[in-house]
């Protein structure tokens, strides 16, 4: 597809979508969003790129293969659950720490966030694996 408007638009929108997806992922615990929605938005961003320009170009910006993303995501999800075992808790219990950062002051970080990152990665991987394969001929 060679639409100048779309290409230019996509260049501008895709980074915003990716940024937004990360925001959804991080804020998901307290506000609307989460790994699933975030992952979908990110995947949509890459799809936009692939539609506007070219699948191969989109694939290049992805750096990792979708299959690798899926594996990585599952690994994250699994690891997040294992931490609890070391603390003597049942598998997948959430562990929480409070971080004191200069600007955000108190931030609570926990293993469910790692789990959510896993969800995020798996969702991106699965969506792109199917869509990009369909687009490549």
């Amino acid at each position: 597809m060679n639409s100048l408007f779309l290409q230019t638009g996509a260049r501008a929108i895709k980074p915003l979508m990716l940024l937004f997806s990360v925001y959804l992922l991080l804020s998901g615990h307290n506000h609307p969003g989460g790994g699933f929605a975030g992952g979908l938005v990110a995947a949509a961003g890459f799809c936009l790129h692939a539609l506007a320009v070219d699948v191969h170009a989109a694939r290049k910006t992805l750096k990792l293969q979708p299959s690798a993303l899926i594996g990585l995501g599952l690994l994250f999800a699994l690891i997040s659950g294992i931490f609890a075992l070391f603390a003597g808790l049942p598998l997948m219990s959430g562990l929480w720490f409070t971080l004191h950062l200069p600007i955000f002051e108190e931030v609570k970080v926990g293993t469910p966030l790692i789990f959510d990152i896993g969800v995020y990665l798996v969702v991106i991987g699965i969506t792109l694996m199917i869509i990009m394969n369909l687009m490549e001929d």
Partner: protein
Amino acid sequence: MLYTILAPFLLAVLAPLLHHRLKDLSGWLFALVPLGVFLYYLSQVPQIAAGEPVYQSYAWVESLGISLSFYLDGLSLLFALLISGIGALIVVYTGAYLGQDVNVHRFYLALLAFMGSMLGVVLSGNLITLFIFWELTSITSYLLIGYDHHKQEARTAALQALLVTGGGGLALLAGLILMGHATGTYDIPTILQSGDMLREHALYLPILLLLLAGAFTKSAQFPFHFWLPNAMAAPTPASAYLHSSTMVKAGIYLLARMQPVMGDTPPWFYLVAIGGSLTLVVSAYLAMRQVILKKLLAYTTVGALGLITTCLGIGTDYALKAAMTFLLVHALYKATLFMVAGGISHSTHLYDTEKLGGLGRIMPFTALGAGLAGLSMAGIPPFLGFIGKESVYEAGLASPGAMLWLTLTLLLAAVVNLFVGLLIAWKPFWTTLDAPLSEAHEGNVGLWLGPVLLGSLGLILGFIPGTTALYIVGPAVAATAGEAIPVSLSHWHGFNLALLLSVITVALGILAYRFRHPLRRLLEAPGRLDPAGPERGYHRLVEGMLWVSKKQTCLLQNGYLRVYIFTVISFLVALPIYTLVAGGGVPIPPEWPSFKLYELGIAFLIAGAAIGAACTNSRLTAVVCLGAVGYGVSLVYIFYGAPDLAMTQFVIETLTVLIFVLVLYRLPRFTHFTSEFVKYRDMLLAGGAGVFVTILTIAALKVEIAPTISTYFAEQSVPMAHGRNIVNVILVDFRSLDTMGELLVLAIAALGAYGLLRLNKDEKKDKV
């Protein structure tokens, strides 16, 4: 005790690695482990002989009453000694017999794993643990029989053994669970105390039948005897170990173990004794017709197992003594003869007894082992075999009720044993052939060490019958009888009927050997009936199962997406509607609420888009309409305060439309395939589904299902999980294991889709 079972398993895992380093030495070094186990159990002999069983328990699945517990009494000890002792010799023998084979490391793996499983079976102090080890022996046996996996014959035999013993294993599991249910425990020592209660129990007969199904399949009793001779496709070390002295004795072990609690009833006597003696007769007939070394041994093994089963079925003190003595005797001589048969075939590449001869001078050590075992098998004094045979006769003569029939059967068994003993231990070694076997040579020490040692043991134990009775047979009989019974073994019992029978046996056996050729011709005559045997039934059953599974797969998994969707939606609509109507719960529509204008707008948008999707002739339009339906639904979410859902739905709809477009792009032009009837049928179904979902939604408004859980989540979300977005907290924290499962399912589905897409592409590439 746990370590003695784990050690073979551990070695099994390491064996392939170690073998690459050790090469030819591996047989000798691996044998150290079973040898150590053997010595450990030997050291337990005095304590067990004193009547003090050992019990060790480790917690496992306590909530189900399953523990990893081990129980060592006389019976277990006898078996454990046989398994580890013969096992050590077999491992050495394997090194010599298969040492040059490239895949021998796999053989070691399966063999050692089998050894651990078999030890587990006989030492388990818990019914469920016993069952697990029991199944492990079936699986390892499958691997061992199918070792020569490039041969069709070996694969078929392995599968047959697995299916027959595995089927029996299922029956056994049911029996064991029923038994646990009846007695209220899975703990074997406790069950052993509850014999009277179990015999009176209403479930006694089902339990008995199921246990017997397990034991008879495992121990190749009629009508399941056919798998054992076929299993001779296994390499000789496996046959010598599994199919003569150990695995097939697992069924015997089970019968003997249950004898104190299940035995001594009419059903037990009739089923076990008659099953055993039938096996004896059938196997005797089949053995007399054979000339192939290993097949001869296989049929006599079936016969020997039948003999022990018969004795257990009779269940008198004499009979139990005979069973345990014969068990020991048989394990010693049969493993020996198998190894001898393997040695002969290894050296001459011949399998037919009639073609063998004159090997006595060429293979002196093998001949020695064969002679010792053959004499024991034939039941010649002073070998232990003589004592075994005498006690069997005594058991038959003293049996209540069916004395004549049983004694005659036992006589037949003994004659066949003598006949086969002559055919294997005498014929190949001490007769002369017209053309001497030129390539024959004595194998290396690993090949004849086992036969010589085991054969001698049969002689040595025969010289010290008192000690054997006191330390080995006595405790085993006590465990089988459930009480201490004075056991004495001796050669000389005076001039009695048993002695007379022994003399008759020898005479008949030698006669049968002398006139074996006319005898075989005579026995071949009814051979035309063979195809009607139980093996035919097995094949029929397997074919039938394959046929049914093929049919039902074609019916249910037909590959048409529309049929799947049709079926799924039909059931989805029909079943709940039936429940609703039958339960009288068809909800009354609530009062017509007042609408806001934008709500009406959304409703029209959704309905219009849906109708549009159904009516259009263009696929693209249909997809876009579907997308519009989805967007409409996400608008609903927004207005009713579920921004999470709305956002997700929005992105999903977008991506779905994208995928649809990409797929449609590849499809051929739109054409009308469906008939009018199908169209109306689908319309009806779709309309039904819509109505049903509406009804369900209205019903759901009225029903309050367990409000506690959602309240609980809402209340605990912040304090327990530090999150205010309940949906997300549930997904990643409260129900994270579920989410994990969903992630896995998604990943697998994506891999499947990926595979299908790639498949298509690769095919295209091939065409170009």
